[in-house]
């Protein structure tokens, strides 16, 4: 067996060539990891937005709150259900809300992007314990005052405390900012529900968010509501409801990321092949000597393959290290499932890192295999004469 240090010394002997090969592989790994991190970040954000104990009710087949309509009569029937939790005063813990998309220009931009305006009732804060006021105050005159999420107030014109937003033929002053602990509500504007219904002529709710007195009752509650002929409604865990909203973009990112990485990796594999063939050609005499000393074909093959794997693994590590810095980058884009703006971060996970490393090793193996085979098949006499 040839000591592995032989391979490593060889890599450091040809610094320029080795560095370029490592760089090529690291670029591919960077793109591979980056697209997976983006899709992961979006999923994490949306899953975090749903509270584990909350239940979402929207109109049957409507997918999201944008399209959902629940009449006041239907909402009353749901609120009266025995499984719904109540506060000490006997009021059902149900947030009936109106959800409207409004177009506002982002800061430094002139074209409108959609932002969520949510009309809330007095249970809404209670059902979302991670939403807290961080600046200004709650509205006192709900007819002219609204509050905005942290991300909304930073990104959208008119959404910081003291600024004004226009909808429903009226101007509304932003009087407070809330932090939603990194959940999707950070990108929303909230107002009082009856004001939202008036402003948009919507005498209906978009969704009901509620707590059950006993979470184990979920299936029974769901069956009762969905089988009631008066209620054309869907009942979901809030987590599942939000997680489903990452579908279209995640699928797109996964497909595009895989296709691009595979084509891209072919380029890097060819790069590794060039390097390894050159390594074999430069060391023909050396290989002959090693063989003459008694090292077998197998150990020649192994040591060259090992060299290629070390190069590609270094590329993988550099690529992941570069991708790690993407964790600090925030992306803001329209969620194609809801047509509204969502801000999220790249998120590196152990699973992404390990699959990226495996991907880099595969590139090294594929790129190094043929050159290693050639090295192992050199005839001793010919190679010593070279």
């Amino acid at each position, binding site marked *: 067996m040839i000591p592995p240090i032989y391979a490593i010394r060889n890599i450091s002997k040809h610094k*320029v*060539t080795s560095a*370029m*090969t490592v*760089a*090529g592989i690291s*670029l*591919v790994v*960077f*793109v591979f990891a*980056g*697209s997976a991190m*983006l899709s992961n970040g979006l999923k994490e954000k949306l899953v975090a937005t749903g509270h584990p104990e909350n239940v979402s009710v929207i*109109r*049957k*087949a*409507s*997918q999201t709150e*944008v*399209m959902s309509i629940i009449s006041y009569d239907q909402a009353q029937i749901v609120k009266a259900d025995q499984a719904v939790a109540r506060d000490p005063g006997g009021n059902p813990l149900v947030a009936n809300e109106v959800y*409207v*998309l*409004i*177009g506002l220009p982002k800061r430094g931009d002139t*074209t*409108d992007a*959609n932002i969520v305006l949510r009309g809330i009732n007095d249970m809404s804060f209670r059902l979302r314990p991670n939403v807290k006021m961080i600046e200004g105050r709650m509205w006192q005159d709900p007819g002219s005052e609204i509050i905005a999420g942290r991300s909304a107030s930073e990104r959208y014109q008119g959404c910081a405390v003291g600024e004004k937003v226009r*909808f*429903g*033929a009226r101007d509304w002053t932003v009087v407070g900012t809330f932090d939603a602990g990194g959940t999707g509500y950070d990108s929303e504007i909230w107002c009082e529900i009856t004001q939202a219904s008036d402003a*948009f*002529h919507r*005498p209906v709710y978009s969704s009901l968010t509620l707590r059950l007195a006993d979470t184990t009752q979920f299936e029974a509650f769901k069956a009762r509501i969905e089988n009631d002929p008066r209620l*054309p409604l869907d009942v979901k865990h809030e987590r599942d409801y939000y997680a489903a909203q990452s579908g*279209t*973009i995640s699928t*797109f*990112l996964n497909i*595009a990321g895989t296709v*691009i990485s595979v*084509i*891209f990796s*072919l*380029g*890097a594999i*060819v*790069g590794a*092949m*060039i*390097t390894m*063939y*050159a390594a074999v*050609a*430069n060391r023909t005499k050396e290989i002959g000597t090693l063989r003459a000393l008694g090292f077998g074909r197998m150990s020649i093959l192994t040591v060259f393959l090992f060299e290629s794997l070390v190069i590609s693994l270094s590329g993988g590590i550099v690529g992941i290290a570069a991708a790690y810095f993407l964790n600090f980058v925030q*992306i*803001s*884009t*329209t969620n*194609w499932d809801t*047509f509204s703006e969502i801000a999220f971060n790249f998120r590196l996970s152990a699973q992404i890192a390990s699959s990226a490393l495996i991907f880099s090793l595969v590139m090294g193996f594929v790129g190094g295999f043929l050159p290693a085979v050639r090295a192992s098949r050199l005839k001793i006499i010919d190679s010593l004469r070279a």
Partner: protein
Amino acid sequence: MKVLKLITRNAGRHKLRTYLTVLGLALAVMAFGLIRTFIDAWYAGARAAAPDRLVTRHAVSFTLPLPLAYKEQILQIEGVKDITYGTWFGGIYVDPRNFFPQFGVEPESFFRIYPEYLVPPDQMQDFVRDRRGAIAGQGLVDRFGWKVGDQITLIGTIYPGDWQFVIDGIYHGENPDVDETAFVFNYAYVEERMKQESPGRVGQIGWYVLRIDDPNNSSAIGAKVDARYDNSWAETKTETEKEFALSFIAMGDAIIIGLRVVSYLIIGVIFLVLANTMAMAARERISENAFMRTLGFRGYHLTGLILGESIFVAVLGGIVGMGLLSLVAKGVEIALSSYFPGFAVLPTTYILVVIIALTIATAASIFPVFRALRVKIVDGLRVVD
């Protein structure tokens, strides 16, 4: 001419290495071209926009409806020659993954304002008479294997319930930028059912499309329309069809930026592959270069030889890559035609590839040239590798 021969001979010294380099470059060029083409296709909707069409929507956002009563009023405004309206239906065909755009429209005025949607006259007649009629794009029909006369059911997401439609006709685009994946049907069907099921939603449509007399007046006419509805409960926002299309395209802006970044990284890989090959060649030829210099060849001769070889390999890779690109893009275009219209390689992409190939070839030869010129003749002759 002798120089060219020397360059090609040099490139042919390590045939396997040159082939691999060309292959690597070709693959990277193809990947770069595919991404560019994808981005161009993304903007196909904006390219298809006509300058004499304006879109009027709710000022707050396009998800809010406008009263149908605006139709006659807008038509009175000076400069507006014709008007039609549409609404987004958003139904599910069997499974949510089978997404395609569905619009409820007024049959006659819609096809009058969009003459680039070509429908055979007899099918058009059936469609106008049929309350449940629909016209589907060729791409959509191919995707689901529909034919004229088929009945299909959509599950409403915005308008609840099951909706039965009959395919009365198939439209073709007048040019490749026209989206052939849309499904248009008679809005009267929706209106009829809303009257019974949800009277509060009767007489509300998604947007109006206006044909104006002079594209140069578009902003003035748009302003007149919007002023007409100032301070009403449904204020309007009127913009050119192109601006309207771009506001939808902007929904993917972060994704497009990401793809652009990736396409630049691919250029990085092309560079690394070529630079690696050229660096190897330079190392092998140190003593040979010193020998040529003793024969009287000057620095610029050597520079020309190295640069020439680099350009030769890069151009070869670029040509093979463009060939691959046009083949693969054709395949993708056929495979995706029913989902993603307008996937065709634009001439600018090819021009860009040529420019990139030449730039990279020059950049990749900087290090080898530097190395060849820096070595003293004596040292170069002494090198034994």
